[in-house]
């Protein structure tokens, strides 16, 4: 079961209803959150992918269970690109040669559809409540999709007394290495 912030039941509905319902549901969730769309319309996979790209959301993937398709879409953000401010960074290319822990702060559903082998998942929104899962003395390489959330996460960790924190730039959207799925 993949974790999402909100579920939408669009089972039994034919085109264009899954899209129309998804659009409405998306209006009500926060930016960066993930919507799970349950549908039985076989065209919905291609439609939702195209729709998400058109309107600026991030299509994460689809899981098929029996007759039902579970689609995962992360709501896009209108916010302008902010300057990344955490000064300790490492390049994505060097990440595999390092010893430290890779901490993936994307949403659980993004992680599920593809992450670097061995990376630990703690979504940005949960990080401050789950600090005890991390070791303050260990090297921590924080990664997200583009480097924006990981910048904030790295700042948070440094503030909380973690000593060897690095923001990985760029993020998973540029990662061409092997991806592990946990579906």
């Amino acid at each position, binding site marked *: 079961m993949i974790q999402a912030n909100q579920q939408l039941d669009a089972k*039994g509905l*034919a085109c*264009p209803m899954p899209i*129309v319902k998804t*659009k409405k549901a998306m209006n009500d969730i926060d930016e960066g959150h993930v919507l799970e769309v349950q549908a039985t319309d076989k065209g919905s996979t291609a*439609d939702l992918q195209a729709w998400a790209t058109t*309107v600026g959301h991030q299509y994460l993937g689809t899981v098929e269970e029996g007759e039902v398709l579970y689609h995962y879409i992360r709501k896009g953000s209108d916010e302008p690109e902010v300057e990344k401010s955490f000064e300790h960074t490492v390049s994505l290319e060097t990440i595999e040669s390092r010893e430290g822990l890779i901490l993936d702060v994307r949403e659980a559903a993004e992680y599920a559809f593809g992450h670097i082998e061995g990376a630990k998942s703690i979504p940005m929104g949960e990080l401050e409540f789950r600090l005890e899962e991390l070791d303050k003395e260990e090297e921590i390489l924080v990664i997200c999709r583009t480097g924006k959330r990981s910048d904030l996460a790295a700042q948070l960790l440094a503030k909380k007394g973690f000593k060897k924190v690095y923001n990985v730039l760029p993020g998973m959207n540029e990662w061409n290495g092997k991806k592990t799925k946990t579906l």
Partner: protein
Amino acid sequence: MSEKVAIIAANGGMFDAYKVFNIATAAAASEKEVQIFFTFEGLNLIHKQGMHHLEMPAGKEHFAEGFEKANIPSIPELVEMAKELGVKFIACQMTMDVMGLTKEDFVDGIEVGGAVTFLEFAKDAAPTLTF
């Protein structure tokens, strides 16, 4: 990329109605500005009574079962949906005059206009579709 989709509805059968309203609602759900120009038989699709009795093409009546099985929304439902999503309906004044129809014969919220009204909207729309 154009943010507008312009549609001409010139036919009044049930299949025509689905083509028009499916594309229109899908486009509106994709955050496009959508206008439909209803002309000649197309006016049937938004006629208060007519929209409830749209006909299938001759010989294709057996598809009625398929529509039901696939749980396809009814045309009045799609019209409501389209309106809710902000699709703008324009009824052709000239056709209305010819057929002796007034604005009150149609679903609420439509506008009445001439060809130029639509052309003005459609000049920078992509795609423009005709059904």
